[in-house]
């Protein structure tokens, strides 16, 4: 019998897709924003997203979980999540078989985040320029390749490109 409030009690297994686990409690909305899940659900008619919040967890006490049925989250997006939530894990499920991916802070990020400096060339609509950042891991900062502006890891969700 599953524990009251546990994940197993709340939602059944998925056969194909992604489970993002160990999200700090009540922060699933931030993960959803970084992964642009609203857009994904609109574009992919057969993709279902289940968000579990404040679920009992042995390690975290309470945690959030996101299950995405029939969609594999890109590892590069998972790595961006790890900037904000270093403990998250990503489970890919293929035909019921689970493989775990531990996201890692990347050395560089390309195309996924907007520069916080509005006057940066990478925020210029008509120039064919892709935003690029280097990570300063010790300082927990991203640095724009073009204008050198800094962006704190924790502020990344507000700068994910739509």
């Amino acid at each position, binding site marked *: 019998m599953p524990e009251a409030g546990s994940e197993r009690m709340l939602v059944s297994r998925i056969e194909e897709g992604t489970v993002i686990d160990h999200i700090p409690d009540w922060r699933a909305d931030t993960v959803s924003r970084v992964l642009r899940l609203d857009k994904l659900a609109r574009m992919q008619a057969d993709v279902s997203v289940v968000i579990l919040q404040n679920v009992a967890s042995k390690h975290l006490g309470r945690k959030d979980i996101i299950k995405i049925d029939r969609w594999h989250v890109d590892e590069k997006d998972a790595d961006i999540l790890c900037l904000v939530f270093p403990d998250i894990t990503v489970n890919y499920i293929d035909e019921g078989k689970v493989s775990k991916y531990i996201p890692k802070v990347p050395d560089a990020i390309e195309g996924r985040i907007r520069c916080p400096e509005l006057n*940066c060339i*990478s925020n210029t609509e008509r120039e*064919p*320029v892709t935003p690029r950042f280097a990570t300063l891991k010790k300082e927990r*900062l991203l640095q724009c390749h*073009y*204008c050198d*502006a*800094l962006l704190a890891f924790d502020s990344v969700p507000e700068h994910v490109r739509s």
Partner: protein
Amino acid sequence: MSPNADFLGRDVVSARDFKRDQFEQVIQGVEDLEKRRGSLDGALKGKLAALLFFEPSTRTYSSFQIAAEKLGMRVSGFAGPTGSSITKGETLHDTLRMFEGYGADVFVIRHSKMGAARFAAEISDTPVISAGDGSREHPTQAMVDLYAIRKAFGRVDGLKVGMLGDLRYGRTSSSLAYALSNFDVDITFIAPDALQMRPEVTQLLKQRGVTAKKESALKNVAGELDVLYVTRIQKERIPDPTEYEKVKGMYEVNLEALREAKPSLKVLHPLPRVDELSTDIDDTNYAQYFVQAAGGLPLRMVLLNLILGGVG
């Protein structure tokens, strides 16, 4: 190895990218040129400089134009967006491609967007020299500034340098701070909080172990400084006009403000000045800004010559 090896075909988009010996090589080149006037004249005969100034400029444009012409280069491009295809909405990318097709050997670019010079350098195989990009950087001005400091003191190491004014939006002060980070100097950023130095600059100084502190008023440090680098409040770069009204005139440097200064203090300013630097300094030993301004032309000649591998 060729004496030009560090510079041949090189882009100049940020003072962050240059090491101490490279700054010194450029400055040495200027000092040599002062001793042997005319020695670079015609050194780049037949080459084409494309000066693409997407933002209006008088002084920097003219100094690059005259430098290129003295080197024997042909000059093409525009000194501001008015009358160019930029007003029709042509992008930096397309403009570069077009001038590449015309056979430009070097691009000198000024642009209002931060990072435009690095972007230009990426999309073009032709060397790109930044003549200022937004409020980010102005690397050749930093070389001129270092030249003026070394000319005054015979060295850069061991000096206490104060930078005053609009450090947040002023592109020359960030480039100078990056350049100075290669030397053994103490830096003080003197500005109100709203105009203090940007975090990416202080971050790099910290990484490089440079002593840098922040002050809100010149009077707190005036007596300690060897160099005072004064910058204009960039009205056009402050988004909120009420903020501009609050800070303009707060940081005027005049003889009264320098009452406690060392007699050996040198005042630098990238010019043009507005209210921040009084003309009563002009005829004193403090004034180093006209020497600094005069260094712009030979320095740009030396730099173009190093990048394009001219003789001399």
